[in-house]
């Protein structure tokens, strides 16, 4: 091995060591931010109405307009709701997620899941709440996580946790075939969901170059590469087209 080789090997070894020795990053305090908007182009698809006559208690909660399927929700400003945006890769191997603070709540209200798309950390409690007081079953159909299927015939809350990162774990109710939710299980807190204005924000990122993925239940996933340093804010916009 030549001199250059030795230097290179030592360099790699030192870098590796440096990587190992880097202290755990702080929780989502300070750090960089990635934010953006999820646009939608093309004709807004008409979502089918949901017939809730079988559940008068749920049906009664929709006085203004009948409920429609939530697979595609296009906002008034032409953006797309319910897109899960998360850091897919780029975090150092040493990154340790902060201890999850409190449970994430999934509410069943009006025979719908609230939220429809959301994220959780590995090991963090998911509190599944039945506000309807009628029978729901909650089935998680992950493939990397063990599934579960809980019965909730009354107003009650059940807790479950997830052991492995998985984007996404489908959740569904079989009593009400229209009830679907999507849960992204991640080993870090760098995720967000586009809201009613189509925007998302991921805060507290350590400096680095990240692959950010935007996932939609009907339109699939898109990625963007974003490099951030210090406490700067970078913009990453996504755009999904009607199919």
């Amino acid at each position, binding site marked *: 091995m030549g001199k250059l080789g030795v230097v290179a090997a030592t360099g790699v070894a030192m870098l590796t060591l440096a990587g190992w020795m880097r202290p755990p990053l702080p929780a989502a305090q300070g750090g960089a931010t990635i934010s953006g908007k999820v646009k939608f182009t093309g004709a807004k698809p008409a979502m089918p109405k949901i017939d809730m006559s*079988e559940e008068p208690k749920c049906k009664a909660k929709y006085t203004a307009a009948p409920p429609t399927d939530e697979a595609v929700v296009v906002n008034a400003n032409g953006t797309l709701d319910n897109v899960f945006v998360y850091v897919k890769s780029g975090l150092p191997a040493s990154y340790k997620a902060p201890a999850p603070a409190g449970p994430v709540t999934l509410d069943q209200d009006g025979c719908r899941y609230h939220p429809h798309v959301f994220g959780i950390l590995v090991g963090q409690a998911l509190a599944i709440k039945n506000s309807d007081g*009628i*029978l729901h*079953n*909650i*089935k*998680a*159909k992950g*493939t990397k996580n*063990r*599934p*579960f*299927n*809980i*019965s*909730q*015939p*009354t107003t*009650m809350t*059940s807790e479950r946790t997830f*052991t492995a990162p998985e984007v996404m774990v489908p959740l569904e109710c*079989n*009593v*009400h*075939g229209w009830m679907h939710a999507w849960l992204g299980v991640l080993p870090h807190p760098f995720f967000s969901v586009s809201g009613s204005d189509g925007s998302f924000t991921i805060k507290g990122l350590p400096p680095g170059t990240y692959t950010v993925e935007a996932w939609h239940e009907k339109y699939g996933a898109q990625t963007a590469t974003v490099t951030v340093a210090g406490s700067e804010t970078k913009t990453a916009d996504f755009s999904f087209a009607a199919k």
Partner: protein
Amino acid sequence: MIGALLGLGIVLRFPLPPSLFPMQDTTRGKTVYVKWCAGCHGDGGAGDGPAAAHMLPRPRNFTGALYKIRTTASGQLPTDADLMRAIDEGLPGTAMPAWKGRLSDGERRDVVAYIKTFSSFFADTSQHVAALKFSSEPGGATGAAALDTGRQFYDSIGCRKCHGDQGRGDGPSAPTLKDDAGFPIFAADLHQSWRFRGGGSAADIYHRLRTGLDGTPMPWFSDLIDQKFLTDEQLWRLAQYVRSLSPPEAPEVRDVIHAPQITRTVPASPDDSVWGRVSRYWFPLVGQVVRKARWFAPAVTGVWVQAVHDGHTLALRVSWDDRTQSPDSAWLGFEQRVLETVAGDDSAPPKAEPWPDQLAVQFPRHIPDGMERPYFLMGSETDPVYQWRWTSRPRKSVAGLARGIERFDTLSGAPAGQASFDHGEWRLVFTRALATPDTANEVQLEAGRAIPVAFFGWDGSSGEHGSRMAVSTWYFLALDRPTPPGVFISPVLAMLVTLGLGLVVVRRARRRGTAGAGRRR
């Protein structure tokens, strides 16, 4: 090193009884698997073997390690004993047979080890696998109070949403149900406990309520005990109630339907009280797989048959479980999914259509003298069969000659047919004169003869129409003759004669004895 390994082996092996540490061999298990299991479950264990495409439910996909019949919590892996049970006893109501007796203990243990290799979950030591602690069945299972409690929880935990008000799998959510692989799945018909996958006893039902059936819409109910929504005993009562919906024993198939002769006019209505007093006979039906288009997923799994006659007319009552009064638009989507799942003969699956429900009763045209009967599958061109056919829409009954599946020629004389549908059950009564003018084509129903009879069923909402149907083999109908008075009188006469003769003998003997004694004195 080798010595250390051997030492470890000895330490591990010998202190433990073999039952706790069975020497399972995945290589041997693979040999067994390839020979006996792969045809349905596929070489890679994905439930996609060559035979799988016709099956509903589909063979288990081992790669996801999701199992219906377990003793563990919802989402937990099954224990080895759970897997062994499914292999040993099979899964009633599916294509999975019982392997105990066909494969040796060692072969079955090895195959359990091998199917576990299809999923990485089994190798993951962080997976918690422990059988739940089940209580034993409380007494009073069949008491009215116990069953009332059970029924109360049947309603309050929402069983009826899928299983229906009377438990025949016809609840409002039933037509939307899919399993985790996206295949259509029927909510179990709780009146056929002999078809329950995990066994039909109250204890089996209680275990399924506690664990749920993973990979299906059936959740577990253990959370509800923890949250004090119901007690463990109340869950037992629910299991006992569900058990009470089926006959105490799985129906035995008997060859001959006895039609007693009654003194009143035969009942034309399926809900006449006479039917409550007449024996019923169970005949299993299977999918028609002889002719194309074949059908491997028959929805009508059997019929209950009763018959009476009054010396002039026969009344034949057929009842069977059917989730829908077809055609039912709520089930069109389900029907389409069933057809897409199992109707792949050679051609593309047919489009779901609003087919009616149908039932056919088949006889030969003439009662045969010997055992020679027409071809069971609707006769043939040269040897047709005489059939009664009923459809739910239009609601009518006809008679005719079938010359194979494809050809049916209607005859002018039709039997009267009356049907009622109630919570997932059809009850249909055909009535026809024993003797008819058309003796060439219509079977003449003579008392005291063995009249061959067979049954065919179609559930329109499961996509059944034409050759996609459920069929039976030939059975017999026997119209009993009224018992002649002689049958009752002759034993009495015989007894009286015997008694009389006996008395004569005794008297004679006594007389002789007295005479002899007199002489001796």
